[in-house]
């Protein structure tokens, strides 16, 4: 029995079960249809899990644990997930490192610095960023950004040659424009709108009176942000960052076009790489063999579970922060 907090005006007084007779068929029918529509979400999620798992059994059984946890994926004999997982994670992390400071900076700018009535055009600009389709970012990336970065990467690589940590990160001989780092940059651009807008929502719930309290102690605006705004928004912003992380990991087309085409685990960020989503997109057409196709679907399942997990944690953070804002 669902717990309703207030009496449902559509049920006759005194009836315990809202589905008891006396409600016209059309009314009940409508409720049923609405319920089914809502259930679709759950149904689809469950079906995705089940069907992809089913199709990946060939991969599981043929490659086995050892095969799946290996690095190489060549579409022939090796179907390891670790190499592409590495690419997904590394490019997403780079995207976060570049994108998060920018997103939070924008969120703070639009909530604390720019007066409320003037903020709208800025928000429109950020929305523009979000509306550009992934494939267009990829097109621009591969035709404009990659060749331009290629030169820069080469310069950096020769510059850091020999220096211990920097060389393993930014050096190397196979440096190319299409690489982990370029994918990370494009991801940063693409996840900034969502992180920024979710953060803005959270930051906007900080009560004015807390901000006044800080100002009344003689704080500058930055000190006020650190003292009054940040402690309130911490949890929510972390949630926003995780949502962005999930988005970055699932981003397919833009990454596929600029990450290069080689599956390997390497510290060289300017090397060509691959990601889970990109490899599925690029190689599905060529996947004729049973195990190949099964492996790609299995990778899809893997990505599905991964992004759902990250999103669950993210929403938990955001809900918790929202609850705190209402309660405290």
């Amino acid at each position, binding site marked *: 029995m*669902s717990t*309703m907090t207030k009496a449902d*005006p*559509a049920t006759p007084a005194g009836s315990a079960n809202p589905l008891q007779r006396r409600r016209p068929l059309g009314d009940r029918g409508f409720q049923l249809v*609405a319920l089914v529509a*809502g259930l679709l979400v759950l149904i689809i999620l469950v079906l995705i899990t089940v069907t992809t798992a*089913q199709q990946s059994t060939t991969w599981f059984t043929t490659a086995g644990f050892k095969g799946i946890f290996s690095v190489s994926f060549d579409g022939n004999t090796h179907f390891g997930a670790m190499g592409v997982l590495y690419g997904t994670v590394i490019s997403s992390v780079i995207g976060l490192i570049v994108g998060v400071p920018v997103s939070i900076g924008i969120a703070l700018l639009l909530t604390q610095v720019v007066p409320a009535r003037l903020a709208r055009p800025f928000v429109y600009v950020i929305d523009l960023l979000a509306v550009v389709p992934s*494939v267009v970012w990829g*097109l621009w990336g591969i035709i404009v950004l990659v060749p331009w970065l290629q030169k820069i990467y080469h310069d950096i690589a020769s510059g850091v040659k020999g220096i211990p940590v920097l060389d393993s990160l930014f050096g190397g001989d196979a440096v190319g424009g299409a690489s982990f780092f370029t994918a990370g940059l494009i991801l940063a651009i693409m996840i900034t709108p969502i992180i920024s807008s979710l953060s803005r929502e959270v930051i906007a719930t900080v009560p004015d009176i807390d901000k006044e309290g800080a100002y009344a102690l003689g704080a500058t605006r930055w000190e006020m942000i650190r003292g009054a705004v940040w402690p309130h928004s911490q949890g929510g912003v972390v949630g926003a960052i995780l949502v962005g992380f999930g988005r970055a990991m699932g981003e*397919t087309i833009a990454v596929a076009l600029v990450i290069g085409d080689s599956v390997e685990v390497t510290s060289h960020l300017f090397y060509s790489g691959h990601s889970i989503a990109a490899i599925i997109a690029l190689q599905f057409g060529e996947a004729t063999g049973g195990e190949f196709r099964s492996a790609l679907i299995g990778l899809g399942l893997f990505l599905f579970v991964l992004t759902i997990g990250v999103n669950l944690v993210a929403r938990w953070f955001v809900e918790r922060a929202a609850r705190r804002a209402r309660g405290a």
Partner: protein
Amino acid sequence: MMAAASNSLGQPVDLREPSGWRRSKNQIMTILMWLAFVIVLIPLAFVLVTLVAKGADAISLQFLTNSTIPPNVVPLGVGGMGAAVVGTLEITGFASLLAIPLGVLGAVYLNEYGGNGILARLISFMSSVMTGVPSIVMGLFIYIIWVLHFGYSGMAGSFALACLMLPIVIRSSYEMLRLVPDSLRQGSYALGATKARVTVTVVLPAALSGIVSGALLAVARAAGETAPLIFTILTVEQTNPNLFSGPDTSLPLQIFSNAQSAYVGANARAWGAALTLVAITFILMIVARIVTALFTRNTR
């Protein structure tokens, strides 16, 4: 005039700016915040300028309507992207037809019927989570349950896009329905209306513009998606007028394949298709904004 005076101990009281480093820190931070905004402006401007510059060369009436997509090696001027334009409109249109009513109904369930029950909270939570599912997974899903049995078709692509749009429409419609004041519902109940009637005749109309604008944004998002279509519509070189059978193509797919080609002609077509796609998306977004603006005016 100097901002100085004496306090009760006779010591000078200075009301000028706080010490240098506090003030500098504040200014630096403000500058950094502005810088953050400028940093995102740069790629955005860059992309839009390139898009317009390179795309405009390719766009022509022939480009938009000619139903034969030439092989990559062929230079610009022959054939066009008509097949892809039609494909995009049809596939996205059908997906919207599926996802929008179902999404709105789902939101109606959550807000009007579900209350605080476990099921409603679960559906609400999982819809949020589902918006984060990569679109490629939706494509794989439809591939498995539909394409493997019934083959590639534009409709399969629509199914995949609809799966993508559904949680977005549910969430945005839900937020709009929540905003409808309860007094409107009470007034209708008091006249003896059933819940269904209240919802359809009072609540939905009140939330309509918000729902519409949210739906338009979902459509814009779906129109730009590539990954779900890779596994569901395959590709064609001629317009496929039949949405329900046979492979199809769409603008994002064409951009994707042409982008990977080394030929100048293919790249030029990619830019033209990209400009067309972005124009469609922008128009949808602008219409959504206009609808929202009308909404806020009506509630004043």
